[in-house]
């Protein structure tokens, strides 16, 4: 398939751009050797470090070497730990996923019904209050919310462990802190998309046939709202990994987010690049799947693609089939 080739090419270009930009930025803004050691380390030590990791080569050459290795699926070594970068990253990814996935799921489960409810009461007090409550989550910086939660549930009530993974209850506070933000985002987008769909004449048609409100919402509104929501979910899922870093740090979950920050601070090129390759591929894949799903959801897009033999990313409105 033609577009599949095109899409893959684009994905590779994107990743390459990502890698190049990152590599040179890191190199230009700090010397890995000076990050690894305290500022008053002996110069010979730094020289040895450079020698060991090939940092004496000009930067472009280092990059070419890195790329060449990458082409053989060698992701390089972490300067900091001397372990293969990929291994270092893969160690941390499950932690992040174990936080990100429940958070996204929870925020969908909370946010979408809230948005739904608000839209059903569009313009009324119930709408405003619902949105007000939802937006509270967004308005308090997540780390502050986390600290509040800790105060109440760890220090005051002593119910929940504040740090790391102890048992399942350890999930409660970090997941709540992340979900608060995303639930607000989902609630507001759902509301917006719903209001849009609710003004479509098909809703009247359904009402005129006396279909029950619940049924109308399930069969007409939800599928039409799905499209914009899928878009937003994919968008936010890409974000959640970086966002999680703050929360990972606060609740001491050693995940990919904190790893990224540490690796950037340490100019641990290979690790940073490996994280980005991973998050980048996830993001690109998520976009790709979203684009594909558009066709599954909306028959017009299916036809349009068929007719014009365009790539599947010729996507429709996220604001539903207006």
């Amino acid at each position: 398939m033609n577009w599949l080739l095109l899409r893959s090419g684009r994905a590779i270009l994107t990743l390459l751009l990502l890698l190049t930009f990152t590599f040179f930025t890191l190199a230009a803004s700090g010397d890995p050797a000076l990050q690894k050691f305290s500022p008053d380390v002996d110069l010979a030590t730094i020289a040895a470090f450079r020698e060991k990791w090939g940092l004496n080569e000009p930067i472009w050459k280092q990059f070419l070497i890195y790329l060449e290795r990458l082409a053989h699926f060698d992701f390089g070594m972490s300067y900091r730990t001397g372990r293969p970068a990929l291994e270092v990253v893969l160690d941390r990814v499950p932690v992040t996923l174990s936080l990100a996935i429940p958070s996204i799921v929870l925020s969908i489960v909370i946010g979408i019904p809230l948005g739904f409810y608000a839209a059903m009461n569009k313009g009324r007090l119930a709408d405003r209050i619902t949105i007000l409550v939802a937006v509270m989550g967004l308005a308090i910086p997540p780390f502050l919310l986390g600290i509040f939660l800790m105060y109440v549930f760890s220090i005051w009530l002593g119910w929940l462990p504040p740090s790391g993974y102890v048992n399942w209850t350890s999930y409660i506070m970090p997941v709540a802190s992340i979900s608060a933000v995303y639930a607000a985002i989902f609630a507001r987008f759902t509301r917006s998309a719903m209001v849009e769909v609710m003004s479509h004449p098909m809703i009247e048609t359904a009402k005129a046939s006396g279909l029950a409100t619940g049924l109308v919402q399930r069969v007409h509104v939800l599928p039409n709202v799905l499209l914009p929501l899928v878009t937003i979910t994919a968008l936010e899922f890409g974000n959640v990994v970086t966002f999680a870093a703050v929360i990972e740090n606060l609740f001491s979950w050693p995940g990919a987010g904190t790893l990224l920050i540490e690796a950037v601070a340490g100019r641990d090129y290979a690790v940073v690049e490996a994280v980005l390759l991973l998050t980048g591929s996830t993001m690109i894949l998520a976009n790709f799947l979203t684009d594909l799903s558009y066709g599954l959801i909306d028959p017009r897009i299916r036809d349009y693609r068929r007719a014009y033999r365009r790539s599947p990313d010729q996507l429709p409105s996220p604001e539903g089939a207006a």
Partner: protein
Amino acid sequence: MIEANQSSGVVPLQPLLSIKGLGVGFSTGTATSTLSSISFDLMPGEILGIVGESGSGKSVTCRAITGLLPNFARVRGEMIFDGQSRSLSSPRMLAPLRGADMAMIFQDPMSALDPLMTVRRHLRLRTKEDPAIYLRQAGIDEPNTLLDTYAHQLSGGQCQRVAIACALSRNPRLLIADEPTTALDVTVQAGILRRLKALSAERNMAIIFVTHDLAVVYQLCDRVLVMHQGQVVESGDVKTVLTAPKAPYTQDLIRAIPRPAVRGERLVTVPGELGQYSFPAPPAIAGGHQLLEFQAVKVQYKRPDGSNVDAVKDVSLTLKRGEILGLVGESGSGKSTLAKTAVGLARPISGNVMLDGERLDWNAPRMQWRRDIQYIFQDPRGALDPSARILSQVRMPLDVHRLGEASERDARARALMRATRLEDALFSRKPASLSGGQRQRATIARALTLQPKVLICDESVSALDVSIQARVLDLLMDLREKLGIAILFISHDLSVIDHLCDRVAVMRQGELVEEGETEALFRQPVADYTQDLIAAIPRLPSFAGVQIARIEAMA
């Protein structure tokens, strides 16, 4: 009013529905009220026709009864349904009635379906029975080919019939149909009318039927309500109203019915409407010159199962300068598709479309073609930007082609809107707060601003009552005369075609079955299908004709 229905005498029947003092105002509008004190009764099994000027409040009445007006509408009045009184001002009270008690078919069928849902699912939601039954009732003879299609794959008439099937499938006691057959050819329409009448008798189903076609009213309805400017100006037994119209508006209406007797003549003569702005000197009408030419045009669509359908099969058709060519045919026969090839919205897989001897290659479009050919979409609701005011939309072609000064453009747009009988108060509205006919007129006005060489009207007067329709048709004829515009006029209303067109082409299943001078074609149709069509034209009885003559004599 009620006595007419008490003829059976024995049991004084109770009305199924009675409306008392219905009034509607829109808080966004400046006008005081859109509807004022509408009252009527409806017996079980009775069929009530509502006719009236476009924008007179027919649709609003229907919506008010079903509780489906936008929530910023202020509604007054009371309704007694099946002996139970309900206030019309609280839509919540009306909601439980929808479905088994009453069902409604909306005016704009092409936007009324869920774009993500197949026809089958639409019906499945409403009934446990075989969906095909209701599609047949709604006049689709081969329902199985349509069951798995989506709205955007249907022609205008097909959508409309699906919408009818949806309403029928609820087996309501009261069916409210707001211009449900505008996109249907006469044969299909005749079938549906017959079935509706039968259903009404069988199930004692009452029907409120909004239409502009007096002949349809005559064929179908027991009683008729004539509306004008938000009020009921006349009501009563169909025969009475048609033979002895009392209200001046009703008289106007009957006089304006297009008919062969006045082919090519003006239906109404209201001078000066076009005089408010000046057109550039009309190009000389070189008679017989071929302006738009379809050369063996063939268009294919994909079916849901992946197979191809030929929506248009090698159709060749010529439109001469200053000519009005009617295009009629079965719903779904490819009329819209053919017309769309002239503006690049459908791409033929073979064949050419020529304009003035030049091949239209839409892969390399030229601005001039855009000016020369104007296409009026079948679905006016879809063709108007929901977020823009209509004045700016009508003016847009002038802005686009940079014709005249800004003020001049505005004046011209206003003049054209007035010429299509849109009142000034409507200019600054958005499409959603217009009536179906008002939207349609806005699209007509928009197409006319550029004074194209070729105008394609796809079912463009279907939502207009005969009096306004007459004015629009007059306007078209004026333009043809003054400017030599050539018009491709797609319509199901054969009397309009008969009245307006010089030549007629008939399509069926993607093919051109017959083509000829109007007079000849209507008098001596050759193809079987044409004969069927002509036979199926709903006609007013002769007494109405006599009436028309009398009214005209008076005028």
